[in-house]
């Protein structure tokens, strides 16, 4: 691995030859828009927003998947790049419901951010839109196919845990959508509500249902804690508003950190002032349950009491 020197938008940068153009640009403060790129996931190059122009090539190249080369001269904002990028964003907007007013993702949505950056608006047209397919079957996740931009991040992150691999692409072309198992719902599928997919979704297609209607992204304050349930110590965001902790949101899983429902519920119980009732999935049905059952503490609690009382007795003797 050697270092290479290249020019991005007139600025010189020296990075290792294994670096992508997108990451090299980031190092000198140039942000290239990308919807499907995530450093923790396999490179997809599906959204095509990160296209850049490289001198000496007529084609545009995706900066997420193109590695730097010595002497490369890259333009991330050339006329050709910006025109293509705007067209691609507009194509996404043309299929996206105009729902930013009430969308839970507003303020954090990458599509919204890039539309603002490139001054693009929803257009009225009589062409096709994605069908409204709202999966409300889970108490933990809300899946809205109409808002999905098919970046594939959810599929990739789900596939990283070998015994999950629930999410997948179904159909093709404009009819493509994200399905669970062989077209099941969040409830009937083998989904374990770990919320990995929710953490990587760049738009409002997958949101945490327990936070729904409770807060907007710009509301309140938040801090990040590590889950104490197991040694992985996954990160969760504790959101508070009006001096009350109101929601626990999973942070994106990094390498080796799997995220799980039990850890999230554990964190909810620990930090949230008035946590909602927990649910368990029992043979493909979500059922309301008790906190001790949800955290598998049933037998343990009795044993705690028994052991504590035994301890008391021993002391008395």
């Amino acid at each position: 691995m050697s270092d290479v020197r290249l020019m991005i938008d007139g600025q010189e940068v020296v990075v290792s030859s294994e670096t992508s153009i997108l990451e090299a640009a980031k190092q000198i403060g140039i942000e290239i828009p990308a919807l499907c790129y995530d450093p923790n996931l396999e490179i997809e190059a599906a959204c095509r927003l990160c296209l850049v122009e490289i001198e000496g090539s007529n084609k545009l190249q995706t900066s997420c998947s193109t590695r730097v080369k010595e002497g490369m001269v890259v333009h991330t904002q050339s006329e050709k790049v910006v025109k293509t990028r705007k067209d691609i964003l507009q194509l996404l907007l043309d299929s996206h419901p105009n729902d930013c007013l009430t969308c839970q993702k507003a303020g954090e949505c990458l599509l919204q951010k890039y539309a603002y950056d490139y001054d693009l608006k929803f257009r009225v047209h009589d062409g096709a839109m994605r069908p409204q397919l709202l999966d409300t079957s889970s108490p933990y996740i809300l899946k809205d196919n109409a808002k999905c931009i098919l970046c594939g991040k959810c599929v990739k992150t789900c596939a990283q845990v070998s015994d999950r691999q629930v999410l997948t692409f179904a159909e093709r072309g404009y009819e493509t959508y994200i399905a669970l198992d062989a077209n099941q719902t969040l409830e009937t599928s083998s989904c374990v509500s770990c919320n990995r997919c929710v953490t990587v979704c760049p738009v409002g297609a997958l949101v945490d249902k327990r936070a729904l209607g409770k807060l907007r992204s710009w509301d309140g304050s938040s801090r990040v804690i590590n889950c104490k349930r197991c040694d992985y110590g996954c990160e969760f965001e504790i959101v508070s508003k009006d001096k009350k902790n109101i929601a626990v949101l999973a942070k994106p899983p990094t390498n080796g950190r799997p995220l799980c429902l039990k850890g999230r519920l554990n964190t909810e119980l620990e930090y949230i002032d008035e946590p909602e009732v927990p649910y368990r999935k029992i043979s493909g049905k979500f059922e309301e349950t008790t906190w001790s059952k949800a955290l598998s503490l049933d037998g343990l609690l009795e044993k705690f009491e028994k052991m504590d009382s035994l301890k008391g007795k021993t002391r008395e003797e």
Partner: protein
Amino acid sequence: MITIEELKRIKEEQRPILEKRLIEQGNVNINEDGSIVLNGDYYKKQVRIALKNCGIIDPNNIKEYIAVDGYFALANCLINKKAKDIIEDMKASGLRGRGGAGFPTGRKWETAFLYDADQKYMICNADEGDPGAFMDRSILENDPHSVLEGMAIGGYSIGADKGFIYVRAEYPLAVRRLRAAIDQAKELGLLGNNILGTGFNFDIELRLGSGAFVCGEGTALIESIEGKRGMPRTKIYRTAHKGLWEKPTIINNVETFANVPVIFQKGVDWFRSIGTEKSPGTKVFALVGKVENAGLVEVPMGTTLREIVFDIGGGTQNGKEFKSVQTGGPSGGCIPANLIDTSVDFESLDKIGSIMGSGGMVVMDENTCMVDIARYFLDFTVDESCGKCVPCREGTKRMLETLDKIVSGKGEEEDIEKLESLSETITLGSLCGLGQTAANPVITTLKYFRDEYEAHIQDKKCPAGACVDLVEYFITDKCIGCGACARACPVDCISGAKKELHVIDQDRCIKCGACMEACPPKISAVIKR
């Protein structure tokens, strides 16, 4: 284990039997040099390399393939040549991939040859999917061994001991014949372990596609063989370095492989003497559409479109005026009549906005609407887009919607500009070849037949009379009131008293054209306008 002597013995034994059968059949000519060609004017003007055995040998009998020198090229390569020599020969031959892009085969093989790995793969792309194209099918069904032999030579040169043929399940006969051919080759020891006692092992397995056109794209094909959803990969690595299961992989098209054994039989110089400097050899085309003699045509590169369409194809049907020829399938373009003298090779076709493609060649006459043709191909692409990248998935859909509007008479002035802008974005922005070329049918028809778009949009007329929403059937005063049209009309929308002028109710007319056909030719009172 078979030896070269045994192979020669089979040839000597089988050759007279084959010749006797062919002479009895009476449809071939056996030349002095031993080559066998099919009789007839249609074949006289062709030069057949990839198709040379098609229609001649029995594809179910490996001995007949051996009788026409089959497997001797492989034997010669294994016994007398080093892997490096084969690569050099392939490079010198100038053979370019026949699947569409025309990448030099020798250079492709060299990339995998030079890359060190414990396992390498040779893949034959037999996922032929362009509408109206059936070149590969014909080779697979009629001469499967030529593909197997080509693959084995390739495998030996790059250091692969395993090959896959990715073939469409929609070609059941090809699948059956390939299976039989592989079994026979294994039985004789021309595939499998220690081929011809040289220590070279090569095995071939079939993988059947499930109907997705995009799986003809190399990386999507690899994903499919790996058991995943057929979606193209972004090319971070070359497939010749990291392809199937992350191992060096070479993918060539059926026709490319079929050329390989012949190059080694007859030599590089012979091969280079056919075709052009930059595109040596021949190309097979599936000549279809409104042409008198449809069928497979194999001609030297550099032959003009005129020679193919008129000299071999016999021109358009029923003496109609020739309008355009479409090459390259959904990725190609429509070439207008004034460019009919363009020679067919990779560079020339590229220059005029079309592509060689895999070899589909659709002839169109005055009754073909070019906007409708663009719409047809776009409809195909929209259906076959894998859905992965935004420009292809969303962009082609919007283009199709715009074209639908235009052919139904609802086109607006700005639609042409919109089509041009979207074409540019889809071409520049798409991930794989399918998307990057999806707009070609629209780009070329806009370039060469823009007036037809304008007629649809401004005058709400289809000059070719093909777009049903824009034509009107009308009965002129030549009508003698015989009532034939009214009786033929399936929706009873023609009225008129006997021996008086009949009238079509335009609101109810479904524009089927039955009235026009029913009107006695001598009268011809019904017109389309």
